[in-house]
């Protein structure tokens, strides 16, 4: 019981830091997100890809040392492509995502607190209602399991991590050079 409560407390603490960072990054704002999707402002992409570079190096280092065990999610084409596109359409209509909407609420944005929040909860409940019909059908279409990129290319993890990190950093230089 005590360890369970400790875990919840850690979740809250990590969330506070995450929310603080999201707000400082500007991504609790509709304007920043929609301008990313309109390809005017690349803040969202810069934040996500910087997190990926720093995160993957650290996570795979810690996994190599046996400190943690990663859990890549299983997927399928039907699940990730169709779900991803539906999500994307909602992302542009609302201008927040499930994480940044929580930050937007903290920032005082009332469209997030009302329509956005109610919509997300309703949409999540709707999927739960449709789940029995989807689960063994479209969600299994083109199933590939919990593959990682190094497994696809049958190489050592670092053969993907290092070039990917370099590629992302080069992309940052290109973006800055182009004035984004």
């Amino acid at each position: 019981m005590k360890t369970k409560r400790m875990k919840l407390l850690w979740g809250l603490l990590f969330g506070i830091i995450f929310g603080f960072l999201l707000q400082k990054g500007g991504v609790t704002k509709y304007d920043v997100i929609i301008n990313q999707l309109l390809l005017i402002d690349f803040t969202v992409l810069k934040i996500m890809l910087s997190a990926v570079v720093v995160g993957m190096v650290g996570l795979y280092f810690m996994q190599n040392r046996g400190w943690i065990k990663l859990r890549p999610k299983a997927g399928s084409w039907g699940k990730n492509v169709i779900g991803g596109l539906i999500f994307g359409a909602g992302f542009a209509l609302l201008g927040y995502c499930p994480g940044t909407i929580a930050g937007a609420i903290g920032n005082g944005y009332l469209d997030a607190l009302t329509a956005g929040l109610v919509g997300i909860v309703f949409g999540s409940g709707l999927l739960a209602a449709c789940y029995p019909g989807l689960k063994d059908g479209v969600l299994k279409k083109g199933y590939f399991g919990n593959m990682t990129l190094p497994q696809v290319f049958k190489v050592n993890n670092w053969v993907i991590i290092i070039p990917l990190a370099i590629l992302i950093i080069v992309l940052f230089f290109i973006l800055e050079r182009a004035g984004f």
Partner: protein
Amino acid sequence: MNWFIEAQWSPYIVGSGIGVLSWFTWLISSEPIGCSTSFSRIAGMLEKLFRGKKVEKKPYYQEVKPEIDWQMMLVFGVVIGALLSSLLSGDFNFQWIPSVWSLSFGDNVALRLVVGFAGGILLGFGSRWADGCTSGHGISGTMQLAVSSWISAICFFIGGILMAQLLFKVII
């Protein structure tokens, strides 16, 4: 301490900070940063209020239990963290209509809410369909090099860019 009251930090600092934060969520809690599952749990908890225990028998809620967990606490924390950050910098304000929206669509609150609600439904439905959102797949999954997450994240942006173009370039 001036740093904490600045309105905006470099996206590279913020992103790296999220990367470091994810080391610690794994190390201490064995959990990736994610958000969207919590909205399913909240939906299930609300449904339980109205329809009682039998909601737990639904196949989806067998897999995603309608209860408070680590990730839901994280989502609550995000609200608090963003509130703290915006209060410190003076960026906190009550606002119904974002400025980029009002430039194109005007100051009608109802219109913003109707479109936002539709977007919310698609977000909730799509994130649970894809089994993750911009944080679970887009950040935590991609950094684990998961194929499912890279495909999802790319599709989030394809769908988002197409819909944004439709809204701001075709309709307006």
